């Protein structure tokens, strides 16, 4: 894939590849706390069906997932596991931080055992605020992420540099 690495991929091909990537996200089937129930409603309930966006909630293993949604409170004890799971995901990978606990510590901002925000540990692409955010809010977050993926530069993503999206 010398074309991708060197950045000489023609624009229509890039947008084709981006489109195909953004409409076939596999979301890692994992949730931490209350937001996981809303995520489950978004993923599994027929009303907020997330499969219509192309996001398939099948993988129970991080090795086969593109997208992980950190939904719920992140405690200090759990952080090594989260980091490990994030490292196990293959590139290109995306992270949605769902709920105020994962964004910034949330209602437990002064607790002795809660990590104040998962972005201290893994890079986050989209923050979905709420406590818990409605499933529609999560769907909007996924749509925003898809728009972001659509505008990505594949060379930067391939090299592993931090992505700056205009």
């Amino acid at each position: 894939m010398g074309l991708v690495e060197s950045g000489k991929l023609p624009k229509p091909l890039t947008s084709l590849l981006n489109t195909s990537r953004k409409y076939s996200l596999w979301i890692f089937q994992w949730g931490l706390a209350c937001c996981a129930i809303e995520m489950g409603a978004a993923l599994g309930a027929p009303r907020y069906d997330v499969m219509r966006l192309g996001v398939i909630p099948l993988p129970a293993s991080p090795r086969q997932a593109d997208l992980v949604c950190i939904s719920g409170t992140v405690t200090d004890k759990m952080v090594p596991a989260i980091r490990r799971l994030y490292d196990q995901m293959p590139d290109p990978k995306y992270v949605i931080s769902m709920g105020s606990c994962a964004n910034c510590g949330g209602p437990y901002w002064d607790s002795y055992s809660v990590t104040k925000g998962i972005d201290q540990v893994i890079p986050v692409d989209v923050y979905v605020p709420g406590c818990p955010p409605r499933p529609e809010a999560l769907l909007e977050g996924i749509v925003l992420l898809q728009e972001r993926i659509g505008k990505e530069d594949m060379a930067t993503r391939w090299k592993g540099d931090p992505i700056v999206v205009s």
Partner: protein
Amino acid sequence: MTALTERQQLAYANAQAADGRVNLEFETDEGMTLNMGPQHPATHGTLRIVVKLDGEEVISCEPVMGYMHRGYEKLTEVRTYPQVTTLINRIDWLGSFANEVPFILAAEKLMDIEAPPRAQWIRTVLFELSRIANISLFVGDMALHIGAISAAFYAFRDREYVLNQIEAATGGRFHPNFDRIGGLKDDLPKGWIADTKASMEKIRDFCDEMETLVEGNEIFQARTRGIGVIPADVALAYGMTGANLRASGVDWDLRRDQPVGLAWNECDWNVVTHPDGDSFARFWVRLQEIRESTKIVDQLLDGLPAGPIMAKVPRIIKVPEGEAWVATENPLGEMGYYVVSKGDLGPFRVKIRTASFNNVAVIPWVTRGVYVPDVVTILASLYFILGDIDR
């Protein structure tokens, strides 16, 4: 290839496993350790179960908790009473109105305030709605863990009706934060009663569906009957409560036996018990409890008294000095709050007695000698919520 000793082979396999964090560790003497780690599709959240196996049989099984420990008891000490109400919604995050009620009742007991009857009745209705929302997810989830995935979709779909009603009344699908010391935040919206009765019909249809789909299924029966039997005296010694206790044959339901002022004795319903004490019994008891809850909601909505929904409380709530314990029959079991107050704006110490903490304590006892798939069945049937265990 040079001949490797068995020790070297095991070391190699260990190294591979440790590197890839495949959740196995081989031990040479005691058998295999299987780590159902904090991320696992079969645990209800971030619970880590370390299982020592002899072949397929479990020698010992130790749950490791704390991955969702948020420090509730410390946090309540620096918050005012209304702020604590907001926080404790999130302990049992599926049936969340039910978490607020015992705390509010304890504060009302110390302040010597009684909420008006309409507020008590509506509290009971919302309590039962949150019970239905909670246990219907259990029903779908237990089938999911056993392998019948479609039941989970039905559960999520029919739960939405109940969540709609809770949202129409309180503004939040879960975490309603609706209970106030002295009553409720708001009255019910127009047309809510008729809508809720319609959704109770749908929930009863859901129960019938689950009975034919899941309970009658012979694979489900083969996987749950006789698995994880907990006799009544063991259940009492461990402090198990709720449907787990009733499935072991103990006829104890706090709604009937230790009334706290809510409206359960105003309507006609049964306490469901089952003599077996196995996983099937726990599933069956909970399914019947959903039916009983729909009956309670229908009867209460028929006879809802008119009146104010908030008693006269001062604007700034200062609870007088004292200690109070209130426990209610939450969807997961018995949840109680021991509130120690020193006359301040906020509590001095709150001990949160959660049902799942005691329910999960029995796991090392009940999983001796079972097979690995049965561990998953037992976990699913004991039904805990991690926020309830870890607080």
